[in-house]
């Protein structure tokens, strides 16, 4: 979520030249801890807060969805959530079990600790481990590149990074489209949150937050491929 916020911070700073916003990455947990401890004014998180992460105002600024992608020539058009779990857990290994050709499924996942992997595990894997045989790549782009080049590959990436070179599968019959994600029909959806400390009384943080939720801020998030919260 860092690149999206960097862009918004830049826009905000060009409107308010005297304000300086310094955007840093490091993962959702790091963001939550940083704002809790007062190391920064605004935190961001690409996953819901856990019950033990208290004392913060979490403001939803956009949605992102996770798309399950395959090669465009792959005849499989959709899977159930259970089938996706079985594939990533290593129980389904051949496309022929899913109505495809007789070929081994090349499963691509993200590295341990990545936010996208965390969200995927939470929503799909139901406490099960991702197979150790899965290829591991360290960015959405690298996962997509493998799927573009290998007609037997299957991976997951952020919805905002879909392009025509890959095919996004429907899940339980629902395709990952803007409308389906907004209406809450597509299951693999995660929130992008801005975190503020209610006791901090920081005027600038509130003002930035206001900008992100304004029509202008929301429009630029939508332009980057996210699903805005304010229609």
């Amino acid at each position, binding site marked *: 979520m860092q690149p999206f916020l960097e862009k918004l911070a830049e826009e905000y700073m060009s409107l308010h030249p005297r304000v300086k916003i310094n955007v840093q990455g*490091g*993962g959702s*947990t*790091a963001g939550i801890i940083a704002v809790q401890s007062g190391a920064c004014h605004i935190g961001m998180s690409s996953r819901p807060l856990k019950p033990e992460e208290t004392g913060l105002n979490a403001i939803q600024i956009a949605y992102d969805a996770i798309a399950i992608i395959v090669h465009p020539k792959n005849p499989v058009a959709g899977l159930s959530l259970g089938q996706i779990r079985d594939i990533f857990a290593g129980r389904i290994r051949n496309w022929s079990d899913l109505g495809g050709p007789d070929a081994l499924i*090349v499963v691509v996942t993200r*590295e*341990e*600790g*990545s*936010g996208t992997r965390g969200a995927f595990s939470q929503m799909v894997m139901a406490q099960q*481990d991702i*197979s*150790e*045989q*899965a*290829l*591991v*790549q*360290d960015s959405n782009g*690298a996962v997509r*590149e*493998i799927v573009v*080049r*290998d007609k*037997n*590959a299957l991976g997951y990436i952020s919805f905002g990074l879909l392009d025509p070179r890959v095919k996004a599968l429907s899940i339980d019959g629902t395709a990952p489209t803007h409308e389906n994600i907004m209406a809450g029909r597509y299951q693999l959806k995660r929130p992008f949150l801005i975190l503020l400390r209610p006791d901090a009384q920081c005027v600038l943080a509130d003002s930035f937050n206001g900008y992100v939720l304004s029509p202008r801020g929301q429009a630029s998030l939508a332009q980057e491929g996210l699903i805005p919260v304010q229609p």
Partner: protein
Amino acid sequence: MRERIIERALFFTALSATFVLFLIAFFIFQQGVPLIVKVGVGRFLFGLKWAPASSVFGVFSFLVGSFFVTAGALVIAVPFGLGCAIFLAEFSPKALSRVLKPVIELLAGIPSVVYGFVGVIVLTPLIREYLGGPGLSVLAAAIILSIMVLPTIISISYDAISAVPHSYREGSLALGATRWQTVTGVVLRAARSGIIASLILGMGRAVGETMAVIMVAGNAIKLPGSILDPTRTLTSNIALEMAYATGQHRQALFATGVLLFVIIMIINSAAYLLIKKDE
């Protein structure tokens, strides 16, 4: 007086490089060793499971991955590298070596990410098409690494072969040996330790390479069952997971660094001793 000041200044700059090395070593060990102790040396080195989310840290498959990728690279690079060094030093016309040597050295100057990119675009689809598997594999990494270590092997072997005194060759030829017999029986034997040192330094380069390997090896955690299976090396493990690692997970990556540090130290000391012995 001025002389002394300059001497002192140079002494300190020389010292600073070593100082930085000690600082790095200290930091890696300070961060990594506690975790190794906590997990247990045996469980850390020979554990097959790597699951940072559930605090299980076993690096055996990465150790095996590094070993196979490096060994594979040497199997491919040694015959080519040695052959090339022998040709350049013994048989090549002067004009040709004057062109070939700088070109080979240029190979060492290509950034590793470029090798990785070529590997992903050209090599892995070929492997997938003709040999099977996902393409991203031990074999792909070994081939890319073999090209990357060639300059090291060729230039150091070349120097070792060229350093053999001319009188040795003349003596051998005078005794009626052919040129090839002279090369294999006399020159290579005399240059032996330099050649072995070149292989060891090449090995060090292969073990330490990260970027190109991440791009073509597939990075799966599982122990590879064949050369067409994906694998993860020690260096890739650190670079892949570094970005988001915190707490114990971060320490475990430093512990992987400790292991790598020890391996590289052993390899480089071996090369150093061999070169020393030669002198």
